[in-house]
């Protein structure tokens, strides 16, 4: 984790633990992230347990009559929200691989606007460390 020079900047982590549909938690979590992006804090997202399903590509919700909100994740890079940590064990336990996830990127203005991946695969052990490094954890 990078060190924060500005004492007014806190490390916020949004922890997403639930599937995207079935309950409203995932959608309302993303709403907080999008609003929170305006506050210039150090923001990261964690996806663990069924939360990893939120990032699946080619989501189609027509049959359940619920809005597919997954395209909104693609906007996060434009809001400088580019640290999405996905727990590898959670993927494994659900028979998923990183190839099943959306390609989410951001443009690094300090590196000639190069497109870089926003999704970072981390182990359960690394996730524990990341969680321990936060100032504010909002869990959904």
């Amino acid at each position: 984790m990078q060190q924060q020079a500005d004492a007014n900047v806190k490390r916020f982590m949004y922890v997403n633990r639930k599937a995207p549909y079935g309950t409203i938690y995932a959608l309302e979590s993303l709403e907080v992230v999008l609003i929170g992006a305006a506050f210039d804090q150090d923001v990261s997202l964690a996806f663990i347990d069924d939360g990893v399903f939120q990032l699946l590509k080619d989501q189609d919700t027509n049959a359940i009559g619920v809005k597919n909100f997954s395209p909104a994740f693609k906007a996060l890079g434009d809001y400088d929200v580019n640290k999405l940590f996905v727990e590898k064990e959670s993927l494994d336990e659900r028979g998923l691989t990183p190839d099943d996830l959306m390609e989410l990127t951001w443009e690094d203005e300090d590196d000639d606007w190069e497109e870089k991946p926003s999704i970072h695969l981390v182990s359960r052990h690394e996730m524990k460390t990341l969680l321990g490094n936060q100032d504010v954890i909002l869990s959904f």
Partner: protein
Amino acid sequence: MKFAIVVNEGPYTHQASDTAFQFTRAALAKGHEVVRVFFYHDGVNNGTKLAVPPQDDRHIPNNWAQLGKDHQLDLVLCIAAAQRRGILDEKESERQGKDANNVIDGFRISGLGQLIEAGIEADRTITFGD
């Protein structure tokens, strides 16, 4: 210590609101400060003035309102979560062209920015919910 409290579940169905209430009351009794209580998801239902629980049961919305009054707490219902669940204060009700409102005195409706701001201001942000 400055606490921000987040309540993510509605009253009665879930223990979260009761536990958050008891924590908030205990923290205040110990001399701590509670910078804001933010109600999100179904938690916004804690702010209804239309709840009529049986007389031998606790009145969760009234208890929050009373605690808020006693300690000048900032009890905030998330506007986006409240609107989709039919929780409207007088102003929002008028703005949306509805003929009723149901937010109990002592709560106010505001945006998600209030949650982030509370997280910035508080020493600890504590979430009550699933």
